[in-house]
């Protein structure tokens, strides 16, 4: 089943105008999961950091690149921190094994510390953002070689 951008937009529009909070379509060779409201209510919640935010969204994981690597992308705009606090060791370094629920960084939005899970199983190969920098929504943070 091939979908164009227009089809996706049409589906999003229909979901948007409906009372549905969530839509899941699973057919052969195609699955679509749409959650309204942008927060991952039904998704795995990462453990809280210093101050838990209400519902950190699942980080958008980019499709595999040609060499099989994927990136962990920022699920929100904010300040990127590699460690729990200044002076503490980074959550992950290149070479680290991560599971989907492994916390890889914190993104701070107005003093709210959002713990970001890897969302994927694999080995971290690169750190793509600078500690304490502003990262945009969707910015690649880590490159991971999936298992």
């Amino acid at each position: 089943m091939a979908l164009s951008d227009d089809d996706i937009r049409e589906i999003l529009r229909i979901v948007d105008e409906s009372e549905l909070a969530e839509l899941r379509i699973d057919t052969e060779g195609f699955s679509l999961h749409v959650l309204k409201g942008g927060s991952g209510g039904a998704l795995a919640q990462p453990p809280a950091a210093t101050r838990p935010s209400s519902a950190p969204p699942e980080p958008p994981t980019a499709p595999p690149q040609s060499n099989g690597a994927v990136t962990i992308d920022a699920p929100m705009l904010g300040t990127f921190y590699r460690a729990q606090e200044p002076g503490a060791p980074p959550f992950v370094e290149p070479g680290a094994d991560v599971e989907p629920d492994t916390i890889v960084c914190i993104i701070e939005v107005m003093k709210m510390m959002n713990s970001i899970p890897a969302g994927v199983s694999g080995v971290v190969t690169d750190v793509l953002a600078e500690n304490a920098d502003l990262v945009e929504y969707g910015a690649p943070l880590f490159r991971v070689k999936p298992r």
Partner: protein
Amino acid sequence: MKRVFIPNRGEIAVRIVGACRELGLECVVGCSDVDRDGLAAREADRAVVIGPGPASSSYLRDDVIVQAALGTRCDAIHPGYGFLSENPRLAARAAEHGVTFVGPPAGVMMLAGDKLRAREQADAAGVPVLPGHEIAAAEEASDIGYPLLIKAAGGGGGRGIKLAGDEAELRALLSLARSEAGAAFGDDRVYIERFIAAARHVEVQIAADEHGSVIHLGERDCSVQRRYQKVVEESPAPSLAPATRTAIRDAAVTLARAIGYRNLGTVEFIVDAASEEFFFLEVNCRIQVEHPVTEAVTGLDLVALQLRIAEGQVLGIAQHEVAFDGHAIECRLTAEDVAHGFRPTPGTLSLFAIPERSGVRVDTHCHPGAVVPPYYDSLLAKLIGHGPDRDGAIEALLDVLEDVDVEGVETNRALLVSVLGHPDFRRATVTTDWLERAFA
């Protein structure tokens, strides 16, 4: 003020980028990821993606917006219109972090946002208000008379208004109105106001600096509306008696002074088409969509004026120095399917061409290949015709609209042509219920 953060999209973000350029200010556009290739994001010095497409996760996140402004070292936020432009939380949060909010102080926004308190302030300042008051039970309406309007204290902008023809209808609608208001605005207080059947919507542009100067920049008539949403606007308001025009402008300035208004704002009035009595509706704490008609007749750059006032500069123009030249009309070209209940028509613009003509200004973010996302309002472009008189402005607009070529999405172009060419519009006898009656 050196760098301005613009958490907005569409034509108004492009407009603010232009004003920043004019003043030699740097600007950073904060956009959603579906707008990252938008014209404003491309024209700004920098763009950052503040969240995904749905506004609730991007343009409505005051925390993310202030974080983004700080992270990009902006010292001011210009919110544009819509989204958080009239939200005291954004203004307060910006102030808390030492970022200048381009608009009135949070306290004034809170007052203006509470339509009941704003009514009381207008009344206290001697500005006429419609007979009305807060209401909890239908019996309390006997002093107002029917028909009447039920409005939400936390509403505004025409949202959530209900018309009750008699007490039975009021009783039936009241609890619905309260629960809707609670859900939509987080405030379930509602109030009633006398309904004027044949009314014109007239609003006055005001400007107030931090040093006590308050002036008006004339008025606009926005009576061509559909479901309280404006379609065509003009300045000056046609067919107002000179005494009414003066009185309505003075009333707006009086109210702005009384509530300590700062920066640019709009005081909206309803004018009884039969008697020319006018009544206060609400104060809008933002730049309006229709500000270009005021710019056309006054020759002022209102967005630049907002930025200069926010910076603490004096207005630099006295009331008697404001000159009004000719007549200007704006029409809003939208991606809507008029034949199917004005359904929004998101899609990709395979063709988008509006010819350049003298006497017509075009404010738009659209171009061939641009995507009209499903998440936001359907405004594609504003066409502003300016002529020595009203007929000249109408002719200039009709001339351009004939050659507007948009493909890929349905637009309301044909409706705009019909409105501008309609004998009622030509005679300026249009009231706020006219569009829906004439093009039902």
